[in-house]
C-alpha cells in the first residue's frame, strides 16, 4: 500500500531523476516498510516521506534549471553562439497535477460566484452611468400609449389611469436594492423606467448615437409634435396656444440651431416653454435608448411576483415600534398598494395608537400609491382634510376619510424624517402634512420627483411631459416638483431620528 502510493508520488519528480534513481527510491521505501512495522513507526515513515517530498521536489526542479544556465554559460565561454536546444519533454505528472488542481479551483470559484450574490449588470449601465439628478426629476412620467391609440380612447381613461397610482421614483433603478425593484408598481410604468427612458438633458455621449442624424428637419419635427401635444393636452388651451407659438417661433428664428445634441435640445425646449408659463411639470425629455411605442402590459406573473415581494417585505412597513417616552416609530419604505396592504397598514397604525407622539421615518421611502398616503394621513386628523396632489384632479377622494374610528392619533405631535432619497408619494405625504402644519419635518430636502405629468411619445428619442390633472394647490408655495420639500429642521438624514426624538421628548415634557 505505502509502496504503491509512493510510486505514484515519485512520478512528481523530473523524469531524469526517476530514470536514474526511481527504482532505488522505491526499494528504499520497501526496505523501510519491511523494517518499520507498527502504527507509530509507519506514521513516522510517512511523515518522513512527505517532509522529504516537500523539501526535495522543488530542489529537484531547481537544480535542473540551474544546470541549463550553467550549460549556457559554458557555451558562451567557449565562444560559440549562445543557442540552447531544449530536449523535447512531455508535460510531467507534476504539471498535470497542479494544472488539474488549478482548473478545479477555478471551476468551483466560478460556480460559487455565479450562485452567490453577483448581480448581473447590463453592459449599457457600465457604458453610460445614469445621471442621478436629471433622472430623478424627469423619468417617472407615466407612459401612455402613443397618439393614435389615445385618440380612440375616451379622455376619461387617461384620468383614471393617472388616478390609480403614483410611481415609485426611479431611484430604484440606480440602486442595487433588489427588493425596491420588485416593488415597482405593476403597471406599464416600470417598463418605461427600465428600458425606456434614461432621459438626460445634457448627454454629450449621445451626439455619437442618436445625435449623428440630428439636424434641422429632426428639430422641426420635434417642435411641431410638441406644439401639437400641448394644444391637445394642456389643461389651459389659451396658455397652450401661447407656449406652442413660442416654441415654433424660436425654431423659425434659428434659436435652436446651437443645440446639436438631443439632450441639449430637450433642455432648450423646456426652458422656452417655462419662459412662457412657469410650470415645473412641463418638460421635453430626451432618451438615448429608443422609447417603446407602447409600454408592455404587465403580466399576471408580474402581479403575482409583486404581491409576493410585498408580503415578504411586510408591505414595506419595515419597523413598527414604540420608543422610550411612548414615542411611536414607523419606518415605512414605500406607500404600497392599499388594495394589497390595507390590513398591514391598519395593524401598524393600531399598534401605535396609544403613542403620545409619532415619528414616520420616510428616509428610504421612494414613493408608491396616493391611496396609501390618504389612508395613513386619515389617522392624523379628526375631520376630513384636503390633501393636495398635483397628479390627480381634485375630487372627493382628495379629502382624508377622517376621523378614523378608534384613532387617538389625531391630536398627537407628528414628526417626519426625510432624506434626499425621499421621493414621490412620500413627498406628497410630507408636503401636505407640512403645509397643513400637522407635522414637523426633520432631515434633508426631499428628492423632488416631478412625476406629475403624463408622458407623450414624440418619436423614438423625444417625448413631452404635460401636466393634465386639474389639481388645486391651496398653498402659495410651489409643490415639490424638481425642488423637493424643505424640512422644518434641517439635519443630516443620519441624525434625523435622534433630533426628532429629542424634539418630541421636549414637547411631551412641556405638556
Amino acid at each position, binding site marked *: 500500500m505505502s509502496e504503491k502510493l509512493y510510486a505514484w508520488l515519485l512520478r512528481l519528480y523530473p523524469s531524469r531523476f526517476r530514470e536514474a*534513481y526511481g527504482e532505488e527510491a522505491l526499494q528504499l521505501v520497501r526496505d523501510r516498510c519491511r523494517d518499520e512495522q507498527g502504527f507509530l513507526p509507519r506514521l513516522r515513515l510517512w511523515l518522513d516521506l512527505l517532509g522529504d517530498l516537500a523539501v*526535495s521536489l522543488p530542489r529537484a526542479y531547481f537544480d535542473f534549471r540551474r544546470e541549463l544556465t550553467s550549460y549556457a554559460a559554458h557555451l558562451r565561454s567557449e565562444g560559440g553562439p549562445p543557442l540552447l536546444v531544449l530536449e523535447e519533454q512531455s508535460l510531467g505528472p507534476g504539471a498535470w497535477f497542479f494544472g488539474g488542481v488549478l482548473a478545479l479551483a477555478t471551476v468551483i470559484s466560478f460556480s460559487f460566484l455565479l450562485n452567490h450574490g453577483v448581480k448581473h449588470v447590463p453592459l449599457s449601465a457600465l457604458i453610460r452611468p445614469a445621471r442621478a439628478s436629471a433622472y430623478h426629476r424627469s423619468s417617472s412620467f407615466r407612459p401612455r400609449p402613443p397618439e393614435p391609440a389615445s385618440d380612440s380612447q375616451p379622455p376619461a381613461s387617461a384620468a383614471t389611469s393617472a388616478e390609480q397610482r403614483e410611481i415609485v421614483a426611479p431611484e430604484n433603478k440606480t440602486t442595487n436594492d433588489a427588493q425596491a425593484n420588485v416593488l415597482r408598481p405593476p403597471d406599464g410604468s416600470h417598463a418605461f423606467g427600465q428600458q425606456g427612458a434614461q432621459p438626460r438633458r445634457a448627454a454629450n455621449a449621445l451626439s455619437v448615437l442618436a445625435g449623428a442624424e440630428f439636424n434641422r428637419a429632426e428639430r422641426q419635427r420635434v417642435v411641431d409634435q410638441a406644439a401639437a401635444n400641448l394644444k391637445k393636452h394642456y389643461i389651459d388651451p389659451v396658455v397652450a396656444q401661447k407656449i406652442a407659438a413660442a416654441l415654433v417661433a424660436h425654431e423659425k428664428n434659428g434659436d435652436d440651431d446651437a443645440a446639436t445634441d438631443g439632450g441639449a435640445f430637450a433642455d432648450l425646449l423646456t426652458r422656452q416653454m417655462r419662459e412662457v408659463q412657469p410650470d415645473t411639470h412641463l418638460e421635453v425629455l430626451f432618451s438615448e435608448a429608443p422609447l417603446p411605442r407602447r409600454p408592455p402590459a404587465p403580466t399576471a406573473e408580474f402581479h403575482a411576483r409583486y404581491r409576493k415581494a410585498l408580503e415578504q417585505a411586510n408591505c414595506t412597513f419595515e419597523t413598527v415600534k414604540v420608543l422610550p417616552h411612548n414615542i411611536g416609530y414607523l419606518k415605512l419604505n414605500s406607500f404600497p398598494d392599499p388594495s394589497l396592504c390595507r390590513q398591514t397598514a391598519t395593524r401598524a397604525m393600531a399598534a401605535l395608537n396609544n403613542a403620545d407622539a409619532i415619528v414616520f421615518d420616510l428616509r428610504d421611502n421612494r414613493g408608491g400609491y396616493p391611496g396609501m398616503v390618504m389612508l395613513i394621513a386619515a389617522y392624523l386628523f379628526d375631520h376630513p382634510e384636503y390633501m393636495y396632489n398635483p397628479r390627480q384632479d381634485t375630487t372627493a377622494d382628495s379629502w382624508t376619510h377622517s376621523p378614523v374610528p378608534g384613532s387617538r392619533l389625531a391630536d398627537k405631535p407628528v414628526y417626519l424624517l426625510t432624506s434626499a432619497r425621499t421621493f414621490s408619494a412620500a413627498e406628497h405625504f410630507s408636503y401636505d402634512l407640512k403645509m397643513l402644519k400637522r407635522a414637523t419635518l426633520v432631515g434633508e430636502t426631499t428628492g423632488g420627483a416631478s412625476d406629475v405629468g403624463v408622458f407623450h411619445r414624440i418619436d423614438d428619442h423625444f417625448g413631452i411631459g404635460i401636466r393634465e390633472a386639474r389639481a388645486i394647490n391651496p398653498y402659495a408655495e410651489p409643490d415639490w416638483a424638481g425642488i423637493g420639500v424643505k424640512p422644518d429642521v434641517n439635519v443630516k438624514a443620519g441624525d434625523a431620528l435622534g433630533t426628532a426624538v429629542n424634539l418630541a421628548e421636549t414637547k411631551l415634557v412641556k405638556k
Partner: protein
Amino acid sequence: MPKRKLVPLPLAAFQILLALAGEDLHGYGIMRHVAEQTDGRMRLGPGTLYSSIQTLVDAKLIEETEPREDARLGHERRRYYRLTSTGRKLARLEAERLRDLLRVARTRKILRGEYV
C-alpha cells in the same frame, strides 16, 4: 574540482560522505548509517537521499560500484556507492572547517568539552 554548489557542503551530503568513509553502502544502508550517526535525528528520505547521491556522483565525490546483493536484505541486486579520493579529501576539508569553528566556539565559551 568539486562543484560550486557543494561549498559549503550541504549537511546531507556531508553525512553521506561520512557514512561511506567506512565501507561501501547501498542507498538504504547510507540512510541507516546517517540515522545512527545522528542518533536518529536525520532520516534521509528517498528524494533527498538520491538527489544528494546524484549531485555527489556528478561531482565525482562518490562513485557507483558493481551492483550486488545484500545478504541481510534478500536477493535483490542493489547499487553500491564508494567514496572517491576527492570525496574523502573534501570530507576532511569540511571536518577541518567544522573543527576550526568548534575552536572558535570554545574560545568564546559557547561550548565546553574535552575534545578538539
